[in-house]
């Protein structure tokens, strides 16, 4: 039996629906939970972040303007494609997180189901969070939730797939687009997920994924004037206050999460609400 040499994958960034290397040309080694080298990942730079924000902004109009039904089908499609690559993800999660196969299997299954859960939300958000306002006058007034815009997401550092899915899906379910900085030390499932997104029907630019040093890139996103919201989930503790201060410069919506969020639990609507604006429309009623 001659050993066949496996074809190793090059892990790149995912920006605007394409897979570029970091413009900086940098990469960094990624190891498994035991410290064994797995692969080199692209080490994203502030310019990659800038390009990703531009891509997310460009994708925003079409994605937020798509029908909720359409977005629901796209998210469901992600679940379908993920299911098809289930084994690959189980292996990657087990390696990245150092968990037994059975645990990895459960994490991947939950991640798939999470897409399904959020897919079902897209066309219910407006009914649940919107309202018809019984104003005291001859006006028809209604309020409807709308996506905030471009969301910078600092993905959880520990939960490399389920956590990642749990922070991306609620952002895009309601029509936002996002720039995600992956877990710094466990980025590989995120890159594989981006291949899933690219081959589902998620339009390019809706989700942009950057691997690298969170502490290096996050400040640029926090202060970027064309970013509307910031999810601090995976932010290093030492940086959280600084990032929030930077976000205040353009009055970004900031999601401060509780530490050690349990992503295996069924979520509530709070992550959906975090990236929604309420728009109230008035019109007189007369003949």
């Amino acid at each position, binding site marked *: 039996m001659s050993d066949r040499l496996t074809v190793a994958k090059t892990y790149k960034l995912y920006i605007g629906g394409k897979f570029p290397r970091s413009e900086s040309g940098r990469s960094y080694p990624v190891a498994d939970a035991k410290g064994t080298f797995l692969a080199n990942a692209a080490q994203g730079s502030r310019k990659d972040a800038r390009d990703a924000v531009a891509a997310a902004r460009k994708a925003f109009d079409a994605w937020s303007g798509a029908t909720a039904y359409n977005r629901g089908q796209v998210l469901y499609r992600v679940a379908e494609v993920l299911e098809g690559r289930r084994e690959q993800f189980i292996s990657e999660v087990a390696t990245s997180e150092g968990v037994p196969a059975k645990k990895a299997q459960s994490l991947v299954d939950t991640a798939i189901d999470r897409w399904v859960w959020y897919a079902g939300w897209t066309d219910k958000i407006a009914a649940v*969070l919107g*309202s018809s306002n019984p104003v005291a006058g001859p006006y028809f007034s209604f*309020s409807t939730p709308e996506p905030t815009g471009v969301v910078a997401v600092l993905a959880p550092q520990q939960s490399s797939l389920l956590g990642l899915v749990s922070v991306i899906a609620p952002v895009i379910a309601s029509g936002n687009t996002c720039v995600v900085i992956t877990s710094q030390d466990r980025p590989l499932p995120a890159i594989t997920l981006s291949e899933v997104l690219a081959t589902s029907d998620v339009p390019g630019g809706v989700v942009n994924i950057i691997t690298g040093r969170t502490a290096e890139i996050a400040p640029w996103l926090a202060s970027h004037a064309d970013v509307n919201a910031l999810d601090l989930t995976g932010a290093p503790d030492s940086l959280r206050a600084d990032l*929030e201060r930077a976000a*205040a410069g353009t*009055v970004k919506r900031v999601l401060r999460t509780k530490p050690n969020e349990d992503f295996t639990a069924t979520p509530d609507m709070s992550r959906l609400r975090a990236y929604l*604006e309420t*728009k*109230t429309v008035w019109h007189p009623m007369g003949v």
Partner: protein
Amino acid sequence: MWEYAPAPESRDIANLKPSYKMFVDGKFVEGTGEPLKTVNPATEEVLAEVSTASQSDVDTAVKAARKAYDRVWSKMPGSERAKYIYRIARQIQERGRELAVLESLDNGKPIKESRDVDVPTAASHFFYHAGWADKLGYAGYGPDPQPLGVAGQVIPWNFPLLMAAWKIAPALACGNTVVLKPAETTPLTALVLADVIQQCDLPPGVVNIIPGAGDVGAALVGHEDVNKVAFTGSTDVGKVIQGRLAGTSKKLTLELGGKAANIVFDDAPLDQAVEGIVNGIFFNQGHVCCAGSRLLVQESIADELVEKLHARVSTLRVGDPLDKNTDVGAINSREQLTRIKELTESGDAEGAQRWTSSCPLPDKGFFFAPTVFSNVSQAMRIAREEIFGPVLSVLTFRTPEEAVAKANNTPYGLSAGIWTEKGSRILWMAQRMRAGVVWSNTFNRFDPTAPFGGYQESGFGREGGRTGLEAYLDV
């Protein structure tokens, strides 16, 4: 021969006192800060001396609020909280004339607005939120949503009583206690509201009102035992507060500035559009964060509309705020008047065409004649910066896409106006406006049932409606 009579409300109705104290732990007490003198902007006379809070007074007030929260308010059944809040609503109605006259004296806004808008809407906010107090489990935040604790609230001078109502009513309904700082130039109606609250027998410490300047606000929002901060005011200060709260667990909502586009299509109901434009920018002297300060008019009707607008604006009566015939009152402070003058001069310098109403202005007091700038381009300061005064900038557009692009071309996003008779176009436009409130074929309408608040740098969080409760619940 045709003259309108001065029809002033008697200032006696305001029961103006020579001095006012702050309200802490259910009692009116002297603050240990430097007392401030509040001025009638229409006459420049001092109305009253008002004691202000020092840092230690802020601490005392927060402690009182904490104690009231822990011992009384958070334990009280919602149905009982509701009855207190209903009481406040009723008392505001009962003392409506007093509050209206006092508001016009202290703020400079026309009595017809304080009487017909500020005071009744303040009452209706309490009335509306009272009903929520025992129904929070139905608000969509889970079966038993919990309050946050002590709310530190800082409000502006443009709607002194109404903003106090917007802040206090939902906070109390959700079970929080309150320390509120009214604006430095307009503390009086909030302190009469304190008197109302005292008369309603609200438990001591549930609502505390501490006058003072920005430093008092800073001490309040920075106080470590405050769980929730709500601020309405300028975007600059809002950013400072957001930065200040970074890294804390305090929940924050901000209602900040705006530079709203009021978009008029060529098929609009023109006469009502003119009314809406006038209401949009000259209501409350333009001291409105959601004022329609940028008129975007379709080129094909621009000349006709501007001509009608000039004719209509010429009929606006500027003067004594207490006169029932007054349409536009006094600018709230000399400082604000200076800023308005400075910005309008930049309009001249940048080549916009200034038209000013020829209405007579009073000899004293802070007044600014209604002003309309034509030939304004997006790049001018008067098209980008919030003037917060009776100054309208007129820009034109050719297509709906262009109108959307220009309307959204601002870091703000509080409100927008759309004027067209075509229903599908209204909905198309409304969907594309990046603004928290879209008034179509109307402008500047407010109701406690209708959520209000901004996109982008106009702030976050909503006030009013079911959505507004989120700001005061731990969800």
